[in-house]
Every structure is written in structure tokens, then in C-alpha cells.
């Protein structure tokens, strides 16, 4: 599953739990023991539905949420419990792009000031900043004159280009992309996706790509981590995972994406899951997916499956599809 060289980012058994107010010692296990690596220049996607913990994982990595246990290593350095100062230094290496570019830009600041803010914090001079802003705007495909404008003069797609330019300002190595095209118009999305692919190739960036849109994930990601209720149910190479998904949840998720092709869409076998996502306040004891699973067996109610390697090279947490080897 991992490359021989040490990865840029290594996450091991990460847990992020939140105490529940008013309950006696109750916790929500938003992220409950997940592990993955992001090699240099690669894209790893976290996918799953709302409440699965994909965004919380990202926030844990950039220090916006406190990590309960586990390790996050960046370039071999443990970063899960850094102080404020060290975090600020790390910001030159790890940046995040959020879903809604309108909320991510200060409406009263010019585009140029927004992009140069991280540079100013790191002590760049005014001239250096101005030059860098020009370079960055060019790199994301906007005219240099946009530096003088405010966000309200820009379209959604242009704003997302500005947010990407700002994230690139300090030449980070890892970009966390949290649903970067979900808020954009369909005709604009492919422009931004092309830009992201181009930047990765030219700058050797690594991406942690968070999305619920599996067609986009398949297009961009090298490896996919499928999350359900804070745990990983399946992870593996993108081709394998899409061509031969093993976990019943992964299968349902892929089957639930409507294909933009009426003939293919109407002739294919679809899995429609019954029921809702369980409340993270009160998750099932055994497999988190047990309540909606079409292939569950009795032990699934009591035994939590761990990730096991399967024949196609993926890792799957399912007692039925990937039974653990018998303990010696």
C-alpha cells in the first residue's frame, strides 16, 4: 500500500474525539483510528458522506482540531501536537483550500492583499510581495490587474483561482483540497480541476483531496480512502477501487453516482441502501455499516472488523468480504 520512499505525510491510527456536552463522559468519535500515506507528488482522496470524518481528518492535519491520539508525520517530523509558533512555520509547507471561495476571501480586501497576506506574515518585503502576487495570478490563469480588485468583482471560479493562488503563495508541498469544486458551476469545475492537475505536475505538489464527488475523485486521485462514521472501510489504488470495489459500502457509493449517460445509467444494476447514516453519537457496536449492510452476518453486530489486505491489493474492513486470518 505504501511506496518504498518515506511519504511526505504519514497518518497512523489517527483519532479525533469530541466530548459531548451535557452527557456523562460521552464522546463523538469523529475520526477513529485511520491510517494513510501521501507520497510526494501524489493525490490521496478521502471520500464518504457527511459525518464520515473526512473534513475533521483534514482539520486535524492542519491543526484546526485537536488530535486525541495517533500520529501525523510530515517529512518524518511528528506534527500532531505542535505549538502555535511551530504551526506557523509549518504553514509554509501545508495549506488548505476550502469549498466556498466566497467565504474564504475577505470581501473588503483586494485580491492582491489577500494573496500576499501569508507572505506578509512570513516577513516578505512589499516589493517581493508585489512581484510574487503577479507571478501567482499568472500561474492560476488570472490577469495581473485583478490584484487591485475586490472579491465581489469576481465570479465563483475566479475566486477559487484566487484562493488557490493564496494557498500557493509560500510554495507549500502539501495542499489539502476540501471539496474545491463543489460550490462552483458545472461549466467552471473542469477549468479548476485542469488547473489543479497542471499545478501538481509543474510544482510536484502532493494533494489530500476531500470530496463526495466520486467521478472527480476517480479522475484526480492516485489512492482512495473510503470513510464511514470515522473509520476506513476500504482503501486502495484508484483503478482497483473503482473497477473492483470490495466493501459493500464502496459498492453502494459507486453505484449511487448517476452516470451522465441515460442508456448506461438505466441498464446498470443499482444498489440502493436502506436507511440513514447512523448518528455518530450512538454508533453501532460492531461494524459501523451493519445497519445498512445488504450482506451482514450475525457477528457483524458485535465484532468491529479491521482492515485486511484482499486479493486485488486493496485493504478492506469487512468480516464477510475480507475475513481476518485466524489468530494463532
Amino acid at each position, binding site marked *: 500500500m505504501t511506496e518504498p520512499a518515506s511519504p511526505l505525510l504519514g497518518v497512523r491510527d489517527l483519532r479525533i474525539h469530541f466530548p459531548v456536552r451535557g452527557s456523562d463522559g460521552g464522546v463523538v468519535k469523529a475520526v477513529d483510528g485511520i491510517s494513510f500515506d501521501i507520497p510526494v507528488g501524489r493525490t490521496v482522496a478521502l471520500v464518504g*458522506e457527511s459525518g464520515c470524518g473526512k473534513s475533521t481528518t483534514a482539520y486535524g492535519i492542519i491543526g484546526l482540531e485537536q488530535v486525541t491520539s495517533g500520529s501525523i508525520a510530515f517529512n518524518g517530523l511528528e506534527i500532531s501536537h505542535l505549538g502555535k509558533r511551530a504551526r506557523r512555520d509549518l504553514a509554509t509547507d501545508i495549506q488548505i483550500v476550502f469549498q466556498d471561495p466566497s467565504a474564504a476571501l475577505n470581501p473588503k480586501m483586494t485580491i492582491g492583499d489577500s494573496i500576499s497576506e501569508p507572505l506578509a506574515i512570513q516577513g516578505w518585503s512589499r516589493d517581493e510581495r508585489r512581484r510574487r502576487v503577479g507571478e501567482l495570478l499568472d500561474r492560476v490563469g488570472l490577469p495581473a490587474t485583478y490584484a487591485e480588485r475586490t472579491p465581489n468583482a469576481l*465570479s465563483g471560479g475566479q475566486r477559487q483561482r484566487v484562493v488557490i493562488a493564496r494557498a500557493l503563495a509560500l510554495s507549500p508541498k502539501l495542499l489539502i483540497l476540501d471539496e474545491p469544486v463543489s460550490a462552483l458551476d458545472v461549466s467552471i469545475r473542469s477549468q479548476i480541476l*485542469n488547473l489543479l492537475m497542471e499545478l501538481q505536475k509543474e510544482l510536484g505538489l502532493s494533494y489530500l483531496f476531500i470530496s463526495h464527488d466520486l467521478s472527480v475523485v476517480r479522475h484526480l486521485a492516485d489512492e482512495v480512502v473510503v470513510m464511514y462514521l470515522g473509520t476506513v472501510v476500504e482503501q486502495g489504488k484508484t483503478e482497483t477501487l473503482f473497477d473492483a470495489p470490495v466493501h459493500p459500502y464502496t459498492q453502494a457509493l*459507486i*453505484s449511487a453516482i*448517476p452516470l*451522465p449517460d441515460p442508456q448506461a445509467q438505466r441498464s446498470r444494476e443499482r444498489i440502493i441502501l436502506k436507511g440513514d447514516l447512523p448518528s455518530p453519537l450512538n454508533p453501532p457496536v460492531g461494524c459501523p455499516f451493519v445497519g445498512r449492510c445488504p450482506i451482514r452476518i450475525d457477528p457483524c453486530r458485535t465484532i468491529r472488523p479491521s482492515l485486511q489486505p484482499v486479493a486485488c491489493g486493496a485493504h478492506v474492513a469487512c468480516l464477510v468480504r475480507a475475513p481476518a486470518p485466524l489468530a494463532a
Partner: protein
Amino acid sequence: MVTEGGQQGHDEPVLAIKDLRIQIDGIDVVDGVSFSAHRGRILAIVGESGCGKSLTALSILRLLPKAARIVDGRVELGGIDLAHLPEKDLEDIRGNKASIIFQEPIASLNPLMRVGLQVEEALRLHRGLSHAEAQREAIAMLSSVGIPDPQKRAKQYPFELSGGMCQRVMIAAALICRPRLLIADEPTTALDVTIQAQILDLMKRLRDEVATSIIIITHDMGVVAEMADDVAVMYGGRVVEQGPVETIFAAPAHPYTHLLLATVPRLDGHRKSVLRTIEGVVPSVDQWPQGCRFRSRCPLATDLCAQRPPLAPVDAAGHDAACWHTDRLMELA
């Protein structure tokens, strides 16, 4: 699917919109839109933000925001022109003969009212049923839209239900008086994909089993492919192309439809390939070009496009497009 084949497309339409024009601040945000919806069929109105699809949907039941008004055209439901009906007569239409559901089910429900009562409301209003009778029907309806344990759920408040469950409640409330027309404005956009699959499945069952005419407003070409019998593509406040779903996807005749389909990454596409793009941005309503409104972004545009192209037949099977250059579409390949 029992209605495949388009037989029922030749019935008298349930809804016929003719040359609808809606203005905001003197600008035509919906500009001469015509289409019809038929019994037992799903019509998808597809387009991006600002194309006028939601205003068109809202105008059918005269639910437009204050700033917008219908300045021209007809909205005929069973022969009655809703566009010119006095407000008090609309009460008899809304939730009775035609219903609408929205993107955010939780925002559409009254947070302080038990969901069962919200489903009953239309029955008591329109049919004058007693509480006991209405309650019985409401619980039956909640059950038929797939709410487990409907007796118990009917007594709960919206906050006690998930998003998917709230959308089922909305659909139950919308359908309780057996309307001929259901308008669904981005009904699954706020929902997770596995829940979206459930709701779309429910809507298809309504079409097939009760022959409800459904208009679904969406920006998602996948949802269109899954659900629609007929499609109207909107851009810049106008319908630029319309026709049967198979034709629209297999042989789009308008450059916008063609490019929109080509920009979406496909599950069977070549990974990491450069995606097709539509250059430029969706212009804001006060910056639409004269003539064809797509011409500022269209690779096929010529001087001719400064004149507005009519929505003209491409073939005899109900496929229309508003483009002067439908014969040059192969240049986009």
C-alpha cells in the same frame, strides 16, 4: 419502466408554459420560455446558476421573490392560466393540484410543528377532512414514501429526523392531495449520494405508479440521465435546447449542451486527462450579449449570432435547439 416509449407524451399536457417572461429590475431574467410537462413523465430543466431554471419553477405556482414579476406569457395548468389568476384562487391550486419541493427540506418544514400535522395540513385545508381522517391518510402517505414506523415519526418534529427523512416528509406533504404536477427544485442537492439514490428512486416510482407529472430542476447531468424522460436545457434565461433524454445525451444539437456534457469527468473516462472546458464565466444577468446569449463563450460563434436564434426543430421527434450553427457541431469534437 412502464412509461418508456413516449406514448404518453402525446396526451394533453398537464402543464404548458408559453412564452414566459420574468423581469427583475427591468431585465428579462427569464426570456420567452416555453415547454410542457406530461402525465407520467419526468421533465428535467437543467442549467447552471443564473440560467433562470429556479425562477421558472417558482413562477409556476406564483412563488417568485418580490423583486421578480411575470411580465408576459402563460402558465397553463389543466387549461387555467396561473400567470393571471387572482391570488385567492391560487390557494386552491397550491398543494392541491400542483406542489413544489425545495433543496433544503429542513428549511421548508415548520420546526415547531409535528411532521404528521404538516402532512395533514393540505388535506384539511383542501378536502375539509377531520383530524382523525386526515391523520390516517397522512400516516399511510408517510409509509408509502418509505418512512419506517410512520405512526411514531408523525409525532416527531423536523429536528428529530435526518435530511433524507425530512425530504420524504416534504414529498409526502406535497403529494397528499394527489396533485397532477410535482415540481422538485434541486430536491437532492443537499443530500448525501446514497440518500439521493433513495429519493430519486421514490420519485421514479411516483411517475410509474401514480403517473404524476414531475418537473425536476437540477444542475446535475447524472441526475438528468437517471430521471428524465424529457429535457430542457436553459442558459441565460432561455431554453437553448429541448428533447427526449436519449437524444439530448447521444446527439446534443446546441454547443452549450455538447460542451456541458463533455466537461464532466466520467467514471469510464481516461484518468488524469485534461478535461474539456467551457471558456469564460457565466455572465451576470446585466451582461448577457445581444442575440444568442451563449455566443461570448461559444467556439462556433459568428456575426450571425448577434441575432437571436429561434428554438427550431432539429428533427421531427420533438428535438429543438436555438443555434444558428447546429450543422457545425462536429467541429467541437
